[in-house]
């Protein structure tokens, strides 16, 4: 099955959207959730999630707290903040603008 790298710059968008849908998730769940929702087309280079999550913590889009998984392991759960919700809107509208533009370019070609 063909798997595609996610387009550059969209990792934040995907993480924000995933968290907005599901509430609190840890890193592995975020990666899994992105792949499943995209019906396994989008593949996140899983390691790159973590630096991205750190940057989002600094920017205040997400908060993190330690919790326990179903398998009784310690895990860091990430949750969207109000700022993160706002950022999601920004990222979505920006993405739609860009995609719309690209689509127009492709169709008129």
């Amino acid at each position, binding site marked *: 099955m063909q798997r595609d790298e996610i387009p550059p710059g969209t990792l934040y968008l995907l993480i924000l959207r995933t968290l907005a849908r599901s509430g609190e998730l840890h*890193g592995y769940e975020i990666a899994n959730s992105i792949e499943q929702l995209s019906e396994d087309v989008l593949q996140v280079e899983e390691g790159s999630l973590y630096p991205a999550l750190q*940057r989002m913590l600094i920017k205040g889009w997400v908060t993190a707290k330690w919790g326990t998984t179903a*398998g009784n392991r310690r*895990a860091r759960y990430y949750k969207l903040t109000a700022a993160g919700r706002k950022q999601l809107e920004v990222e979505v509208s920006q993405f739609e603008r860009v995609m719309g533009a690209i689509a127009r370019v492709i169709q008129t070609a």
Partner: protein
Amino acid sequence: MLLRRRQFDADLEEEMRLHVDLRAQQQAQAGLSPDDARHAATRRFGNTTRVKERSHESWGWRWLEYLLQDIGYGLRAMMRTKGITIVALLSLALGIGANTAIFSLLDAILLRPLPVEKPEELVLFGNGNPVGSTGGLPHGSTHLFSYPFYREISQKNEVFSGVTAIDSIEFAAQGTVAGGGREMMHCDLVSGTYFSVLGLRPVLGRLLADSDDQAPGSGPVAVISYGWWKRRFATDPSVIGKTVQFGTKGYTIVGVAPPEFFGTSVGQSPDFWIPLSMEKEVSPGWNGLNDKFFQSLYLIARLKPGVTTEQATANVNLLFKQILRNEYVGPQPSQKELTRIAQARIELTSAARGLSQLRGRFTLPLEILMTIAGLVLLIACANIANLLLARGTVRSREIAVRMAIGASRSRMVLQLLTESFLLALVGAGLGVALAWRAGEMLLRMATDPMQPAIVAVAPDLRVLLFTLMLTCFTTLLFGMVPALRATRLNLTSSLKEGRGTTSAPSRISLARTLIVSQIAISLILLVAAGLFVRSLVKLTSVDTGFDKQNVLVFQLDEYAAGFEQDARLGSLLQQIEERVQSVPGVKAASFSFFTFNQGEWSEDVTLQGIPRTPENSHEVLNNVVGTGFFSTMGLPVIAGRTFNAHDIASAPKVAVINETMAQKFFPGGSAVGHRYGFGDDPAHSGDIEIIGVVKNAKYEALQEKPQPAAYFVYAQRVQYLNNFEVRYEGDSRPMISAVRRALAEVNPNVPILGISTLAEQVDESTSNQRLIAQLSAFFGSLAVLLVCIGIYGLMSYAVARRTNEIGVRMALGAGRSNVLWLVMREILILTSIGLAIGVPLALAGSQMVSKLLYGLSPWDPVSLLAAIGMLVGIGVLAGYLPARRASMVDPTVALRYE
């Protein structure tokens, strides 16, 4: 920070481990074998180290990590090349230490602002240099003011928020505290506005107020300094209300000044301050509260916000002339008085850094020493740069490997600079430790060792900041070029050969340039050292005129014993002289106003029957002495007689003059029998009869030219004479106690303020020159030592690099002496170039220090030739060992050498 990072790493690792574990679990459920599942999961996760690094980066910790890494590398590199490190650290410690020590002194005396509120608003009337009192109508630039003038200007000016007056004399005498024993005390007389103008708050009690400074004798209160409170009273708060007996009066302590405040004169720290209203009680001769012609005060004022110094100067001078015109002269002033008033002016100068008598004395010497210390540091930097260049060669392989696997050049340069900075920092640490004691030692060398330390020189924050800046600067100076050089590699050849052969020639030529500049700078330092040492030798071998050996000088305070300046005082002095003369071993004893280097009392004189000429219009230095003075000082009589027991108050007034006065004022004939008088009034020209002529002596300084001088006997001119000289034979210690006992027998209440010898007084007068000579000689030798190390290092390195070439030369028939010459020739060439550059610089430098030289032209050939000879000698010496090693090379070994 470090702890947080460890926690951060642990958290991140746990998070990633969980991720990989869960992924592996999922893969295993999908049917993979446990091993394959783990591999797949790890593959999908990517490079964990990279993830960690990028996570750190996002927190902005990258520079910190690099820094920590670099410090680690640096420490390891320092440990690996111990020899280089030790030499570099020593050079740096001495270089930075010397600069810190001199700077701490320079800062304390020349730069530091007064620890008061907004010091930049304070202005001083005049330059604050004269000490004492002046009489007469002010004319020209005026520096000392009277108490009535202080009162008027405070009321009438429109530019100051406050004015304060400080007596130009710091009073020192023995006193008692709360009825205890006698002890030495220093006190400043200040106006009641002193502390409020400076904007100070007490740590205890209250400070002086204007109400303490009203009618004469109305304010018997004292504010003590924090230093004295700590030293004398162990910061006991019950000090308030205690009484300090000083002079004839007791003063109630009302408060303690803040800790950092030492007074307004840098170099003097009075134990307490008392109001000017007590002037007469402190010193009976100092009675100027109602006398507008008794001008003995410094004035300091605080500018109102927004007022410039120019506006203030205009306002003050306008008022000055008005006050002079209205109150200092009669309604019909003479033309002379009007001219004087027209010329009288006050220049306002900044008082932000306080007043200082030290400043005038030490500015030039300190600036010269700072320059010298700076040059030594430059030489040290050149040396370390050379060492690092050599080490860069050794490390070129390491650097090449690191750059080949992806380290950027800037990263490498940064790493090498970090290493250099580390080196400089450790060196600076050692240097500051060195400077801590050195600063105090310098001060002791420069000033009277009997006095308490006059300024605080312990490195404070300002000094440490200076050192830190110096350290950064030196790092860049000695580290930048080697770092750039070391990273400019041809990677392939470096890796292949392991020795930086491609860039080495330019590296050697850079090292040569450094050596040449070191030699040039050393020459400057050696010439300066030579000049100062030779100047000191000349100065100390000057004939003082008197015999300074075997004379004790006792400082006595007759005023404290309650004697007025009348016949009783005269007979006390005489009794003391007679009693001490009878002590076995004492050859002669006498009181005098001055001994040597204690100030002057000079007067214009008019000769009877001889018209004024430019030759005899010179002012005459005066001294008041006992009858035994000339034999005590060992001053031979040339004509006439000296004073004897018949020269009493009722007898005709007589004087003994010196050779210069006899020759200048009475050329061609004998001076004995002539008469003269003080001032320019012919009516008084017969007041004094000359009875004898004595040999010339030095009076104020060893450098002075022969000056006309006259002596009077105290029996005819009773006054307090603080110096009591005793010429003795044998050991000085038992003599001191014998004289002490004799003094106590005559009058136990006359305190001895100090005991020294005449020889010490003479030495003391050259302490400045001694300090400069010793330090410049020390720095000169330091420079030579550094250059020696530098040349030796460079030549050893050059020889090691050329072993192969030397082997070839020898195989082709070159003799050992040829090889020796080959190396020595290079050293001689380098030295010659260095000297050629250094000589004009040294000559220019000498010109700048000419003010501090005595009996020498700044272009002193002896100093110059000695310096050149010394550097050539040092060059040959330092180069000979490597050269000999080169000539001992075994050609067969050398040819196989790599």
